[in-house]
Every structure is written in structure tokens, then in C-alpha cells.
């Protein structure tokens, strides 16, 4: 086995077939960029879920003067309502599920509101009385929010019980759809990459049929004949996947860390280490796919 010879044969094959090889590189590059983006997006969703779900609370909003009459016929919730809610939260049926809870009165709610909507003109028109007094409940397991909702929904003096995760779920479902879209584009592109690789390899084999004929006549082993073609595909696939890796590092560095992370400072975003961890997987996928496609193509073309 002489590898220098195999590699020089591969080099000749690539040179002769350069435009096809470049197209293989580009298609693998783009498809794997989509794969990588989808992977990072999933990681992002995962880390945001654990971060936000832990912080997500169940809010028990008490009635205010301005609450709709059909839900709060008696208007502003009385002190009794607060006592009832507190008792229920402390009761043996609910206490085991609850990590901690606290009460926010009108004044505190107003303060929080003013802080959160500092730059918004709505802050000027809101009065403390319009804002609900609220019990904020942190659960030991955020998945058990329905238990709290069941217990307090419909209780007189309670306007609404809301699991904050329902807001998050909307965001996550949008992100999920985006990553699924990226994955489906990637699947289509990868499929065309596989077809392109097999066409390229077959074309390369046709261009070198004289050599192949002579190699078969003098008794070169199939492996020796096929290897340069398979390597041709693998080299193109690996170059494409390295480019995809570079693109993903670039996206993370410039867009995510450079832009998003500065815009939303309290959110943890995927970083360079996540992208670096993805890189070997991309190279493996690109090289492996190319090797399989090229081997299948050349095997069908070259029978003994």
C-alpha cells in the first residue's frame, strides 16, 4: 500500500473535476451550516428552558376595583381573601408542592411596574389601585402548576391564576419551529449533497476510465482503485464541513455574543465553546456522509 500514490491520484482526480468538487464543498457547507444552526438553537432553547422555567412562578392575581364585574362582582378583594389564600397555600394539601411564596400589595406592584416600564408612557397613567395584589408562588416542580391553578381558580376575590410558563412556551414554540425549519432545509440540502457527491464521483470515474481499466487489468485491488475516489468525496465533504463550522463560529461570535447578548444582558446565550463542541460532529457528519455516498457511487460503477 503506497499512500503517496493514492493521494497523488486523488489530487489528479480533484484537479480534473474541480468545478464539481467546489459545488460539493459549497452544498455541504450550506447544509451543515443549517444543521449546526439548528443544533445551536436547540441548545439555546434547552438552556433558556432550564433558566426560565426555574424562575417561572404561578401568579394568583386578586381582584381590583377595575377588574371585570363578571369575575369580580364584589370589586376590590378584601383582607379575608388574602387570609383564605394564605391559609390554602400553607395547608397540608398544597404546602408540599410549594417552594416559597410571597405577597405583593398595590404599592409594591406599582413600584415594580414603574421600574419595568420606565421608558414607556403607560407608566404615567397607571395608578397603584389598578394593579393587582398578587401572590407569587414558586413551585418545587414547575410542572405541577395546574394543581395551584385548580385550587384557586374560581375562588371568590381571585381574578386570575396564571402560570408564567404559558408565556415562555409561546416563545419556545416559535424557537422550536425555527430550528425545525432549519433542520428540514438542512435535510433537503444534505440529500442534494449526497446526490451531488455520487454524481461527482461517477463523473470523476468516467473521466478516469482509461486508468481504471488499466488498473483492473494489471490486478489492482478494488480498494486501491476506489480509495482515491472515496477520498476525493471525503476531502470535499470535510472542507465543506470545516467551512460550515467556521460560519457557525462566526454567527455565534458576531451575532449571538456580539449582538444578542448585549441586547438581552440577563439571558444566557450559546457561546463559542458550544459551537466548538459542535464542530467535530459537523466534520464527522460531512466526511462520513461523503464517504458513504462516494463509496456507494463508485461501487456501483466499478464491478470486478
Amino acid at each position, binding site marked *: 500500500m503506497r499512500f503517496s500514490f493514492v493521494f497523488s491520484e486523488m489530487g489528479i482526480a480533484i484537479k480534473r473535476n474541480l468545478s464539481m468538487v467546489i459545488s460539493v464543498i459549497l452544498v455541504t457547507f450550506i447544509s451543515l451550516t443549517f444543521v449546526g444552526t439548528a443544533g445551536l438553537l436547540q441548545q439555546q432553547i434547552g438552556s433558556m428552558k432550564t433558566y426560565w422555567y426555574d424562575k417561572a412562578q404561578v401568579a394568583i392575581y386578586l381582584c381590583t376595583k377595575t377588574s371585570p364585574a363578571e369575575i369580580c362582582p364584589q370589586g376590590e378583594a378584601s383582607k379575608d381573601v388574602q387570609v383564605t389564600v394564605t391559609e390554602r397555600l400553607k395547608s397540608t394539601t398544597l404546602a408540599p408542592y410549594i417552594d416559597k411564596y410571597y405577597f405583593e400589595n398595590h404599592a409594591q406592584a406599582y413600584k415594580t411596574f414603574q421600574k419595568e416600564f420606565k421608558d414607556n408612557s403607560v407608566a404615567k397613567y397607571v395608578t397603584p389601585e389598578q394593579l393587582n395584589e398578587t401572590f407569587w408562588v414558586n413551585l418545587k416542580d414547575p410542572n405541577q402548576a395546574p394543581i395551584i391553578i385548580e385550587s384557586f381558580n374560581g375562588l371568590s376575590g381571585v381574578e386570575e391564576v396564571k402560570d408564567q410558563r404559558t408565556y415562555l412556551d409561546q416563545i419556545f414554540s416559535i424557537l422550536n419551529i425555527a430550528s425545525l425549519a432549519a433542520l428540514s432545509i438542512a435535510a433537503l440540502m444534505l440529500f442534494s449533497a449526497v446526490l451531488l457527491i455520487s454524481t461527482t464521483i461517477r463523473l470523476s470515474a468516467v473521466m478516469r476510465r482509461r486508468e481504471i481499466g*488499466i488498473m483492473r*487489468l494489471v490486478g*489492482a485491488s*478494488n480498494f486501491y482503485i476506489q480509495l482515491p475516489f472515496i477520498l476525493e468525496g471525503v476531502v470535499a465533504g470535510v472542507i465543506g464541513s470545516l467551512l460550515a463550522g467556521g460560519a457557525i463560529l462566526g454567527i455565534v461570535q458576531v451575532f449571538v455574543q456580539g449582538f444578542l447578548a448585549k441586547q438581552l444582558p440577563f439571558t444566557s446565550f450559546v457561546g463559542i465553546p458550544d459551537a466548538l463542541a459542535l464542530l467535530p460532529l459537523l466534520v464527522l457528519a460531512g466526511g462520513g456522509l461523503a464517504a458513504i455516498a462516494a463509496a456507494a457511487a463508485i461501487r456501483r460503477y466499478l464491478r470486478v
Partner: protein
Amino acid sequence: MISISQVSKQYKGAPRAALEGISLEIDKGEFVFLVGASGSGKSSLMRMILREDIPSSGSIHVLGENLIGIPNRRVPHFRRKLGVVFQDFRLLPNKTAAQNVAFSLEVIGKSKGFIAEAVPDVLRLVGLEDKANSLPSELSGGEQQRIALARAIVNKPAILLADEPTGNLDPATSMDIMALLDRINLSGTTIVMATHDRGIVDRGQKRVIELSQGKIIRDARGASYGESE
């Protein structure tokens, strides 16, 4: 060396069998002319001996290998023990004479050192050591065929198959090639040569196997081309 028994080959869609009940034995060191009209089955028979094709029925043994049962992965190793030349030389146009010969050794994994010794030796044997660095396009037909011969014998095959090796050459050049084949034969290599060239066969007075419509119609030693055609 070559033992063929009751070999028939029927190609799909062909009106008649390409080979029909062929049986023959060729011993070590023999020089055999395979003659017959186009389509008589000479090339099919050569392909069977090279294991480029498998007969529909019958058995072929070449150099101790049963070519019907040999697994595909052993075929390349089997072919290394055979040399082949063709009417159209089949040289690589972008490689020099020496590179063409070296190529056949490189692809079977011979070492650089071995190639550096074997290639000049064999070029000397065919009388083209001074043309080592010429491209095929710079060589005459006879010279190209000698390079092809050099390539076929550089690995010291036990059998040399020659499919109309003089078919594209003028009579004088053909004589040179025949002289070279005779020398290769004298060194112990068995030669099977398919040819249409009546003059060469008549001068050779060697064993002649004549095929017609896929059947052997004559197998005679020290014979001439024959009356047919």
C-alpha cells in the same frame, strides 16, 4: 496452466451462444495462436481466461485457480499473474513510457525501489530504454505496443494474453513485435495470441486453435492459418 472444459457462454438477447462446448488445455511455455473470423468467440474466450466474464456453463482453471468459484476480492490477485496486451495499446496519454510501466506496478502496491529497478530493466528488454521519457503521442505504433508489452511483462506473469497485438501495425513492425513475443515465450511465459494475421501464423508454425461460431473447429500443432476466411 490453462484448463478449459465444456465452456459455453450465452449473452442475454444474443441469437446464438458466443462460446459453445469449448474444451482445451494449454501447458506451461506454450505459444498458442487463436484464430477465427470476427465474432467467432476469440475475444470472449480471452475474457473468460482473464476472468472478466464468467461462462454460463463449464469450468475454467487458470494457474490453479478455479475461475468459476473464485471470490471477487481474489480476482485482482489472480490477474497479477497474467499480462495482457491489446490491439489499441491502451497506454495513458499523459504519462511517459516509463511512467506507464511504473503505473501498473504502483497500483499493485510495489515499492519505489522495486519500480526504480524493474522499469529500466523491462524497457531495455523491449529495446526502448532511450524512449523512457517520451509520451505515447511521440512514439510510433510499434514503439507504443512495445511499451504496452513492457507493462504486461514487468511483473513477470506466467501467462501473456495478446489480443490482436499486431492488428494496428505494418508488417515490418509486426515482425519486430513477434520477435519480442518469441523471446518472452522462450523465457518461459505461456502466450495466447488472438490474431487475424495469416502471415504471422503461417510463419510461426505453432499450435493453432481455430474458432468458428463459438466452437473449436481445429486444434493443431505446428500448423498454418488454415483454409477458412
